[in-house]
């Protein structure tokens, strides 16, 4: 059952990304181009998403546990560290360069395989390198 809901969640996510315009790199860049000709659409994506999810989370997290799992798995780190700042900066540069972030890349695989497949492969490689490096710096601190 939890697997069915995981795929339904993914399905709605992919559908929402496509409807919102997030799958289109030029639209993403248009949102980041605030000093040029600015397309504020993605602020509406963020607004709509947070509005629904914040209300949803508020009620869900009052429960003892999820419907089909033993417990809620929530982030435990609270401090603002170097990895968060450097990682987010690097991510933002890549996002600005290509107009693509991880969710839309996955959802573009069937629609734009010529771009999305190679991007996904290199991105996953980047993920594994990033994980290794940030784990090391946590241990060395």
């Amino acid at each position, binding site marked *: 059952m939890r697997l069915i809901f995981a*795929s339904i969640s993914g399905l709605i996510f992919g559908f929402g990304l496509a409807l919102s315009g997030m799958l289109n*790199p030029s639209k993403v860049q248009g949102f980041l181009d605030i000093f040029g000709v600015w397309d*504020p659409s993605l602020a509406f*994506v963020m607004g709509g998403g947070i509005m629904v999810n914040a209300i949803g989370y508020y009620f869900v997290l009052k429960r003892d546990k999820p419907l089909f799992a033993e417990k809620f798995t929530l982030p435990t780190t609270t401090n603002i560290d170097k990895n968060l700042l450097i990682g987010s900066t690097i991510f933002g540069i890549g996002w600005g*360069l290509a107009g693509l972030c*991880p969710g839309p890349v996955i959802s573009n695989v069937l629609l734009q395989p010529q*771009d999305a497949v190679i991007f996904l492969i290199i991105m996953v490689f980047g993920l594994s390198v990033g994980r290794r490096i940030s784990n090391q710096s946590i241990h060395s601190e």
Partner: protein
Amino acid sequence: MIIDLINFTPIQSFLGGALIGFAAFLLMLTKGRIMGASGILGGLITKDFKTDWLWRVFFIIGCLIGPVILITAFNYEIAYKPVASGIIFYIAAFLVGFGSAMGSGCTSGHGICGLSLLSKRSLISVITFVTAGVITVFIIKLLGGI
């Protein structure tokens, strides 16, 4: 500031965003997990993934099919215009993966989920990556494109 009224899609973007938020809510309700694309992907490439990978694959399969449903069932045309190619495109792909792993999240994890949890880390992350993206695009436009 000049608003791009030709490409502005407030209604579709808001509805799409609301659906993304609902998807995140649904994953928390049923599986108790944050819906972060980079985290869900990243969990597939760790050594200790043995017990925890199947739901990730199912989620990703859903992500692949979602847009296809929008096209086929609703006859919707999904625009796609690339902005980078060649070596810049590949470098960007690496930076997106590397940065979201190091920063523990991306647009969905920090943006949609973290902000909904009122996480200070996510707020700082979103401000940081949007600022970095804005500066990057500013420099690209300054150089006359890439």
